[in-house]
């Protein structure tokens, strides 16, 4: 039984604004998907003839596909390394008391706050000073730096919320430290690890302001490639198709994550 309450004009306005914001949030995503199926040579509306030509164009653009390959390799390896470095760091910060702990913690999270274009420029200067050339290793290491704070943040959050009694019980029942970590702690903090890995992967896949300084004309990541092309040639419809594919992949990963750990962990 729902009691009908009179809705005041204020409430109605409030509710309408909320719905308008939802539409605003979805608008560019929906429009890009629509535009990607438009047969027109130039991007325009309305969509009168349906076609898959832009998807074929993506498939035939070898430079674009190469940038996808670079992006996936960089994001995958950077995520694994960010987890490998970030999880032990979060453990140290959560489990030990030592002088300067809060400062180290703030320092490790600082890449989240630094304007990335400043970091990008700083790395350009480092490359210039050291005479380094663009390389996949450079990409991967810099992406570890910008993604590891996400892992530390999420893992630290679940670690500090953990009930210590659970680990204490395992230890007092004779499990050694490593066994306790592996069999008790790890399963308990798994949502934090998965969420951190997801953040890391998406951040790496998304980054422009640092990646733009790391690549060359022959080797670059997908977002930098899209950025460069759109900046020079405007809104080529082929990128509507690329965007649609990226949106579909993002949604698929999110739905899977909702099933595994729940969306609340991604906030």
């Amino acid at each position, binding site marked *: 039984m729902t009691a009908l309450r009179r809705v005041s004009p204020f409430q109605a306005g409030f509710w309408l604004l909320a719905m308008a914001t939802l539409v605003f949030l979805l608008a560019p995503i929906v429009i890009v998907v629509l535009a990607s199926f438009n047969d027109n040579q130039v991007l325009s509306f309305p969509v009168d003839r349906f076609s898959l030509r832009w998807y074929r164009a993506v498939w035939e653009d070898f430079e674009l596909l190469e940038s996808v390959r670079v992006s996936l390799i960089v994001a995958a390896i950077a995520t694994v390394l960010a987890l490998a470095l970030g999880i032990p760091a979060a453990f140290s910060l959560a489990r030990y008391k030592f002088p300067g702990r809060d400062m180290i913690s703030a*320092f490790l999270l600082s890449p989240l706050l630094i304007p990335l*274009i400043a*970091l990008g420029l700083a790395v350009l200067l480092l490359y210039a000073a050291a005479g380094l050339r663009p390389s996949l290793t450079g990409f991967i290491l810099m992406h570890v*730096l910008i993604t*590891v704070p996400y892992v*530390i943040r999420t893992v630290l959050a679940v670690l500090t919320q953990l009930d210590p009694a659970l680990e*204490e019980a395992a230890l007092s029942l004779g499990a050694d430290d490593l066994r306790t970590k592996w069999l008790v702690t790890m399963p308990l903090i798994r949502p934090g690890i998965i969420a951190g890995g997801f953040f890391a992967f*998406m951040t790496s896949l998304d980054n422009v302001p640092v990646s733009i300084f790391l690549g060359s004309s022959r080797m670059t990541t997908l977002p930098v490639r*899209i950025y460069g092309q759109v900046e020079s040639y405007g809104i080529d419809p082929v990128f509507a198709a690329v965007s649609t594919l990226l949106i579909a992949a993002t949604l698929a990963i999110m739905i899977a994550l909702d099933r595994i750990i729940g969306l609340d962990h*991604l906030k």
Partner: protein
Amino acid sequence: MGDEAATASRATRSIEQAGGGRGASLADRVHAWKEGRWAFLPGLAPVLLLYGVLLVLPMLLLGRYSFYRTRRGTAEVIDSFTVDAFVRFFSDAFYLGILLDTMIVGFVVVLICAVLGYPLAYFLAGLRRWKAVFLMIVLAPFFVSQVVKTYGWMVILSNQGFLNWLLIESGLVSERLRMLYNRTGVIVGMVHILIPFMILTLESVIRQIRPQVLDAARSLGAREWQVFFKVILPMSLPGLVAGSLLVFSLAISIFTTPALMGGERVQLMSNFIYKRAVSIIDWPLAAVASWVLLVLALLTVIVCLKVLMPKRMRA
């Protein structure tokens, strides 16, 4: 079984005593059975090494470059120690104008994010049954690549774009509006990218307001708008302030959206830095601009953490 449980509880008790009793933090209590003064180091050493080489070293270099001088009219850097680049930045109306523009755009973006984000955050906070669906609608745009979202807005706002088509078809305007490659476009794109930060920050605060408090206000005769302005808004103010500062610090740093949607006309700090780094090469000036932006962004966050957030909300 019983014995084991007794042992476990005894062990827990002894740990509690060793760690300073119930009041001690988790770190203290667990620390009680960890040995060694430097035991924290192995977990941190690799990540600190990475930060040392790829964060501290480059930032020191950035600091050094801001005291270099360029040979007049060229990109060549002269090994020197001078405040020349600082003087150039802070005495030139054009450069200061870019800084001012960046801050103005930041303020406008914060304002729009707050006005548009608040109702949706309030709506989300009160949801129970359909929460997952609406959370997905808010989070999906958040995780879609920034380049894709920016491209999407260019498709909507361009001369041949969706919005112009809609406005002309519906007869609302007779001539196509110019909405891209100017400040309007940049602000729309930036609001879209940053509004999820505002919504999520607000939602977590609004959710903690107990409905009984609102019912109390209503039963005392408050109208809905009064309930909002006199109860809900004041109670969620910490979230609004935190969200605003977060959005501001991100808005002044954002690169991709203004670079693509601003075209030649709109120049904000981040795009200015990029230009001075790669096309009109002037590394000392770019380094100074980077420091200005960095200090501004960090100050915003520090104000947010230290002054305006009540103690219980820090974490």
